[in-house]
């Protein structure tokens, strides 16, 4: 410590007081004043002691502090009070303009808030799981010949092998969704869609809390079931369900071993019943070791976040060991990868999928952009009206400057005014959001629930939004207005220069550009939807009723069942099939070996089984050869192919050609069976219009879905009769059906949602832009009253003046339209690339959007222009 020198041993003035003094004294004299004080302090310390010296030193700061508070803080506070007061007075004095400003900002902010809700909802999918960042879904890429299929699933045996071989893996869970089952307890029974066969480990991997039952053992044994709270209420009412039995599909009883909380809407897995996977192995023990079918969605909980990266390269060995011979015989490769749980909702696009509800990140970007643009449009209104009205404020600004306001103070004042506006707008926006929420829920199809947990980020983000708005909206007027020269503004008849007018025009063009792009977007999305709904699909989905025959015992007598149904007068025909169009996951994807190709190089094609009646019932068209026939016993070895298959294989006439189909998988070897092509079906859209029509094969076998074509008239009585006939067919299960057209179009729900949201937001953006335009037009009418009066005195007609004034604004809208066209063209083309089949962009969409914007703008401006044009010149000129 000695080395620190003598300075340390000397008395020092109190630190806080010294710091205060140095902050509060003027920079020019700070050094000498501080030096003087310190010298005196030392002298006092020697004479009167350190304590008194320090006390004295401290007293020196009080008067300074007092004067600082009086002169600076109080002054600033009263200035801020003054800014707010003048801001408020301005709002009150100019009610019309303030209304336009606040209404525009409020609308824009309300849109932004709703969009933020939507985006937050989408981004928060699956994040409620405690270990969300360590959970991945297994994805398989299988490549064979020229086919590449990707599926978010694995083989049944893959999961356990992964858990056994890799210490990085903490737990694995497999799920097998069942599309529908009849659930029965006592006298209560109904069809349920949310069934999931799963491992006991589901509760280790995911966070689905059990309200009753032991998560470790609940699903360990065969024939056990865990149900959600709402299903427990539905079936058991007041009883305690634990230990009781539910009957599924009238086949077996399942012991209820647990009750879980309802699945949150923000989960990509949606279900009401968890059935133990063990149940499936009872009748089919070989399923446990199935490496042949990729049909089991599998989720992995890793020990840490690096798990997927570490395990993925090591999987090559596992693939080689288990699948080597099979892959070699097929000439294919198979790669496993891991998709993070939190990306499933927004980043899933697979050849086959097992969960229906997936959104797309693309829509998040689109809506984020729309939200931002709408807020900017509203901010532009504020900027334009504030600078346009600068002439009115110019005197005030001049006077403030003359009495000593600096640029900084004026800058603060105008920013303060923008803040006042944006806070008022925020309050209004929150009310609007509250009112619009039910409507928004219905058009977005999202169950938006705002709980206390959301408030933690909502409240700050609201104020963030208000701050953003006041900065964007307030900074240009603040810079512009604070730069005005008092000498100019205090002169009579000062007007803002042409520069600021030009800038306002640029901003108006920008507003309308965005509005028009959104209108065009609405038009294009709607056209594409109409196109998808009305396009000839290659089959007729109208009046087609689809149901499932769950009891395989009915299959042998299926011909008599169909005959019975056809007796009903309203029924045209009936057929059995494995899958109907739109049921992507029901069809198989299998290897096929066309003639002339080695068994080691098969093609992967989609295939499903039908009976002879499906082609006429669905209205499919045979372009070559013939349909399956009940009278030809050899047809069990026959195939129908679509035109895409013929094209892919390069066959001009496929009829009579041979294709080997897989008949059995044993010991990793495929047993082939040769079948003959008997006909070609015209290409039809088995998948939605997003997807290209792919090669496709049909074979003859009875499978479980019953398709009934109905006559258009007397639909409801036909259905009643069908229900009556059904009791004879399957006395246990009630008839449960859907209509194919509605089911098929349900694939376009995301596009429908987009279309509805697009219309709403484009309408609002144009409305906000028009509010601003209205403000500018009425301001112009007021400003140019004298000019108009002189024109009229010199002989201009009302019409001439009206045209002249309106044209000035309409020119801007026309310019915006022309600029919007290329922007919309590129943006919408990019969106349309999502669809294999798309409606061509029509120039009329573009012209109509421009015309609509022009018409709306004209209506907005014309009233104000007419008011100016029709006024009596005397009124405007009498004071000159």
């Amino acid at each position, binding site marked *: 410590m000695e080395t620190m020198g003598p300075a340390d041993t000397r008395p020092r003035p109190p630190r806080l007081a010294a710091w205060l003094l140095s902050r509060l004294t003027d920079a020019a004299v700070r050094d*000498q004043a501080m030096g*003087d004080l310190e010298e005196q302090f030392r002298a006092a310390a020697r004479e009167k002691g350190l304590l008194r010296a320090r006390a004295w030193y401290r007293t020196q700061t009080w008067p300074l502090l007092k004067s600082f508070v009086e002169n600076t803080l109080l002054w600033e506070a009263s200035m801020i009070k003054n800014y707010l007061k003048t801001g408020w007075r301005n709002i009150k004095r100019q009610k019309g303009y303030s209304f336009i400003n606040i209404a525009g900002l409020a609308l824009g902010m309300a849109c932004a808030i709703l969009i933020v809700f939507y985006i937050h909802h989408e981004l928060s999918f699956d994040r409620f799981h405690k270990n969300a960042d360590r959970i991945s879904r297994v994805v398989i890429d299988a490549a064979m010949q020229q086919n590449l299929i990707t599926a978010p699933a694995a083989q049944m045996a893959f999961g356990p092998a992964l858990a056994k071989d890799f210490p990085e893996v903490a737990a694995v869970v497999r799920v097998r969704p069942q599309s529908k089952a009849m659930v029965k307890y006592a006298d209560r029974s109904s069809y349920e869609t949310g069934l999931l066969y799963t491992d006991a480990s589901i509760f280790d991997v995911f966070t689905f809390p059990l309200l009753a039952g032991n998560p470790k053992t609940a699903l360990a044994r065969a024939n056990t079931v865990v149900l959600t709270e709402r299903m427990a209420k539905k079936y058991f009412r007041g009883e305690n369900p634990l230990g009781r039995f539910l009957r599924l599909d009238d086949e077996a009883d399942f012991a209820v071993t647990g009750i879980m909380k309802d699945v949150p809407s923000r989960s990509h897995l949606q279900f009401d019943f968890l059935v133990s996977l063990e149940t499936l192995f009872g009748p089919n023990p070989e399923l446990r070791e199935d490496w042949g079918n990729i049909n089991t969605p599998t989720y992995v909980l890793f020990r840490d976040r690096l798990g997927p990266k570490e395990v993925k390269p090591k999987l090559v060995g596992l693939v080689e060991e288990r699948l080597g011979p099979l892959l070699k015989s097929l000439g294919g490769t198979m790669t496993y990868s891991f998709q993070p749980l939190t990306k499933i909702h927004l980043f899933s696009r697979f050849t086959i999928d097992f969960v229906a509800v997936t959104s797309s990140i693309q829509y998040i970007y689109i809506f984020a952009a729309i939200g931002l643009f709408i807020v900017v449009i509203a901010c532009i209104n504020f900027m334009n009206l504030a600078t346009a009205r600068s002439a009115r404020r110019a005197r005030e600004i001049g006077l403030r400057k003359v009495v000593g306001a600096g640029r900084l103070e004026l800058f603060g004042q105008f920013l303060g005014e923008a803040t006042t506006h944006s806070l008022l707008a925020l309050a209004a926006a929150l009310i609007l959001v509250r009112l619009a929420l039910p409507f928004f829920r219905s058009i977005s199809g999202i169950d938006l629930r705002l709980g206390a947990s959301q408030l933690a980020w909502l409240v700050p983000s609201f104020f963030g939004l208000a701050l953003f708005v006041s900065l964007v909206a307030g900074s240009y007027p603040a810079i512009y207005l604070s730069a005005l020269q008092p000498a100019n503004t205090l002169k009579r008849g000062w007007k803002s220069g042409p520069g600021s007018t030009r800038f306002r025009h640029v901003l108006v063009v920008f507003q309308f550009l965005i509005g028009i792009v959104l209108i065009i977007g609405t038009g294009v999305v709607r056209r594409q939807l109409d196109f998808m709904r009305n396009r000839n699909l290659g089959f007729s989905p109208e009046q087609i009723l689809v149901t499932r025959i769950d009891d395989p015992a009915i299959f042998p007598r299926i011909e008599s069942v169909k005959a019975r149904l056809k007796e009903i007068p309203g029924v045209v025909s009936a057929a059995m099939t494995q899958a109907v169009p739109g049921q992507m996951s029901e069809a198989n994807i299998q290897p096929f070996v066309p003639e002339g190709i080695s068994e080691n190089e098969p093609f992967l094609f989609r295939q499903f089984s039908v009976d002879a009646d499906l082609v006429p019932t669905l209205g499919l068209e045979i372009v070559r050869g013939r349909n399956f026939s009940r009278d030809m016993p050899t047809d069990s070895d026959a195939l129908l192919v679509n035109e895409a298959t013929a094209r892919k294989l390069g066959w001009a006439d496929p009829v009579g050609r041979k294709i080997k189909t897989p008949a059995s998988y044993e010991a990793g070897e495929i047993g082939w069976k040769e079948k003959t092509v008997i006909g070609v079906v015209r290409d039809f859209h088995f998948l939605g219009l997003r997807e290209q029509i792919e090669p496709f094969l049909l074979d003859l076998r009875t499978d479980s879905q019953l398709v009934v074509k109905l006559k258009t008239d007397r639909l409801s009585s036909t259905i009643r009769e069908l229900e009556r006939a059904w009791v004879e067919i399957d006395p246990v299960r009630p008839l449960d059906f859907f209509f194919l057209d509605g089911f098929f179009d349900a694939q376009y729900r995301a596009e429908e949602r987009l279309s509805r949201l697009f219309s709403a937001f484009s309408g609002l953006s144009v409305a906000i832009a028009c509010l601003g335009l209205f403000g500018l037009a009425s301001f112009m009418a007021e400003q140019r009253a004298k000019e108009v009066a002189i024109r009229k005195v010199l002989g201009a007609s009302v019409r001439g003046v009206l045209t002249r004034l309106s044209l000035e604004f309409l020119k801007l809208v026309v310019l915006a339209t022309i600029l919007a066209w290329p922007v919309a063209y590129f943006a919408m083309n990019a969106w349309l690339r999502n669809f294999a089949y798309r409606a061509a962009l029509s120039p009329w969409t573009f012209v109509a959007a421009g015309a609509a914007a022009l018409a709306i703008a004209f209506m907005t401006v014309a009233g104000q222009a007419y008011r100016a044009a029709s006024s009596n010149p005397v009124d405007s000129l009498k004071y000159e």
Partner: protein
Amino acid sequence: MKLMSRIDELILVAIWKLGKDAYGMAVREEIIRATGVNWLLGAIYGPLARLHRQGLVASIKGEPTPERGGRAKVYYELTPAGKTALKAIREVSAAMWKGSPRIEA
């Protein structure tokens, strides 16, 4: 002639009176002693700086000492213009008082 404010006058007088020892704190103490009012630091140093700018006082920087926390002492003295101004104000004062009746406190 230009009239000056009372505090300017007091400062100029204090500097003249203190001679070689006229630095900020001494000037302040002199004025506090004479007026009996606790003048703020700013109330002395501010006008001092202004007088300096106006060319009525000159400043001489002393050596920085550890006693002062390593800061230099600044001494002031009147410039010829300062002396003229001080003389003038005294003459104005005397001229005003001349012939006026006595004030009994």
